């Protein structure tokens, strides 16, 4: 919603006198050379390490170990090996399943929760909103042990095996995604006009009807943002996944971390495969982000929280 407001503002500023030189002079903030210097510096700061990921992934391990930036040899075979050596095939499949389920369910739950929080007055409402913000900052390291114990207890007392399955991870990620997803939806729904809902109510729509027929179709940008952030939470997590998975339910993040750690102490670590696997793990995230960039940036600043 901030995104749309911002877009309006910028477009208003631009349409003021589009493309005119004087207009540009008025709003400009930095002298040309300084501007160019900053841009070049920052782009290099970002792009050199990013380019290195690819360059090292096609280089030989010896070349990487000797500190070559530009590879002396070129080979794509690392991209064939990582699926079994790093365990990336299983890892990516698990990551996609767990993070994907988290995204869908979290978006669905958060829109319902946010709708009530935005549109209805009740006691404890502000506390609930504050709680959403506070819960985003509860440190994962504080939660991992009790959650682990709780899940193990569910195996011994209820006979439900949670540890080591994808369900345990899914429930965990879903819960930890909820506060932020809901907050994003809260900020989004606030920007929707009430008139449509009121019209629908006059036509006899129920609460659920309003939510499904009016709010849902209008909220896709917000749903996409909150879903993607839930997805990223599951995709990026190492802490819970490293404690709660077995090799066969490992996510890609843990597979890569374990592979990297196991290379310590060997003769020459398999750098090429590490970099190839890094690139493969990063690719879905970067692609998602490029596709939905406009929404996501708006969501980030509107949510005000990572």
């Amino acid at each position, binding site marked *: *919603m*901030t995104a749309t407001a911002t877009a309006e503002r910028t477009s*208003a500023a631009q349409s003021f006198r589009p493309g005119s030189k004087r207009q540009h002079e*008025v*709003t400009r903030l*930095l002298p040309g050379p300084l501007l160019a210097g*900053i*841009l070049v510096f920052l*782009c290099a700061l*970002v792009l050199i*390490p990013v380019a*290195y990921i690819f360059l090292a992934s096609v280089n030989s391990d010896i070349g*990487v170990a*000797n*500190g070559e930036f530009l590879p002396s040899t070129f080979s794509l075979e690392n991209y064939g090996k990582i699926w079994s050596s790093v365990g990336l095939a299983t890892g990516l499949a698990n990551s996609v399943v767990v993070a994907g389920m988290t995204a869908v369910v979290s978006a669905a*739950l958060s829109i*319902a929760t946010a709708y009530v929080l935005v549109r209805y*007055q*009740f006691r*404890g*409402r502000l*506390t*609930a909103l504050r*709680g959403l*913000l*506070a819960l985003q*900052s509860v*440190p*994962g*390291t504080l*939660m991992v042990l*009790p*959650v682990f114990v*709780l899940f193990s*207890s569910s195996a*011994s007392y209820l006979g439900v095996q949670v540890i080591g399955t994808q369900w345990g991870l899914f429930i965990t990620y*879903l*819960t*930890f995604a909820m*506060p932020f997803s809901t907050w994003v939806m809260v900020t989004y729904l606030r920007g929707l006009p009430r008139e449509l809902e*009121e019209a629908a109510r006059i036509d006899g729509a*129920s*609460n*659920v009807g309003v939510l499904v027929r009016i709010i849902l179709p209008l909220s896709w940008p917000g749903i996409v943002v909150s879903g993607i952030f839930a997805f990223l939470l599951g*995709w*990026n997590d*190492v802490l819970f996944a490293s404690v709660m998975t077995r090799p066969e339910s490992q996510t890609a*993040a843990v597979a890569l971390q374990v592979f*990297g*750690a196991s290379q310590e102490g060997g003769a020459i670590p398999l*750098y090429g495969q590490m*970099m190839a696997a890094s690139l493969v*793990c990063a690719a879905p*995230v*970067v692609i998602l*982000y490029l596709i939905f960039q406009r929404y996501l*940036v708006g969501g980030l*600043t509107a949510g*005000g929280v*990572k």
Partner: protein
Amino acid sequence: MTTDSFKDLRTAPRPPAALPQTAGADLPSGHGAGATPGHDGPARPQRKPARRKGLSERNRPLWMLIPGGLLMLVIIVVPLLLGIFMSALSLDQYTLRKWVSAPFIGVENFVEALTASPLLHSVWLSVSYSLIAMVVTLPLGIAAAVATQNAFRGRAVVRSIFLVPYVLPSFVVATVWRTMFQPDGVIDSALGSVGIDAGLWLNGPQTFWTLVLVQIWASWPFIYLLALSGLQSVDHEVHEASALDGALWWNKLRYVVFPYLKGPLALAFLIGMLHHINNFTLPFVLFGVPAPADVEVLPILTYVTSFQSFRFGLSAAMAFVSLVLIAIPLFIYLRAVKLDDAETPGGKK
């Protein structure tokens, strides 16, 4: 504080009598079958119809809060309380299986954590590393935002590039920098070509600065984003006025533009601190466990105490200390955020 505020969320939906009795048990069926429409009729006459807040007062579907609230209660609040309880138990790999009957030792874990463990050192490391990283990312982020504020050819591409470090998963960032920081790796050979011998990056006292550097690389785009949202709130008239006055670019930035950034940047500062202090993945993947003593930040220490030394009770006490630590910026943040103002939807300023 977290716990208290959350209890209210749970208890809040209960008071209104209009709640469908079964809604708590099965949301999906209630959702699908539309349990509430039946309530439409009887709920209405109970309240005065002519009130201004009519819509939000009657027929509130508070049951919709139940699935999300229940989930957060079971997986966040209960473990949080459990963690605090565990910090008072003598819990190791032998007593963990029957943790309910583990010996209760009161504050002994806290005493040990504060006097006989590297906890205070870790607190110091966490705070100083977060602060240094924050102080360096601020000018980087502001410079990036100011530089991309005015349109130029290729600006969209530059803006996308700027966000790449932020969207790369932490474990990827750490794996890549770990490779680059290897002895004789690409960074050492680049520094060597200009005659600098930097020494070890992944071992020894310099590891602290390695962590700070990588954290800066990964998190400056966040400052950039919030600074950008601040810049976009600068009115066009302000630009015109300062142009009429013939303000030099530096004075314009300093006295006209920067004041607009104060709010978003204060917010970015608090959230950034919270994230840095809580960051587990970056040091964990960058250095592995057991980590060098100079990067044994709080999350790493807590993790190692639990899952390497199996001192679960002690670890729970440490985790509680880190909760107290983050409560400080969190408290300021919650006080500063406007929760319910349509004018500032992001809760900023």
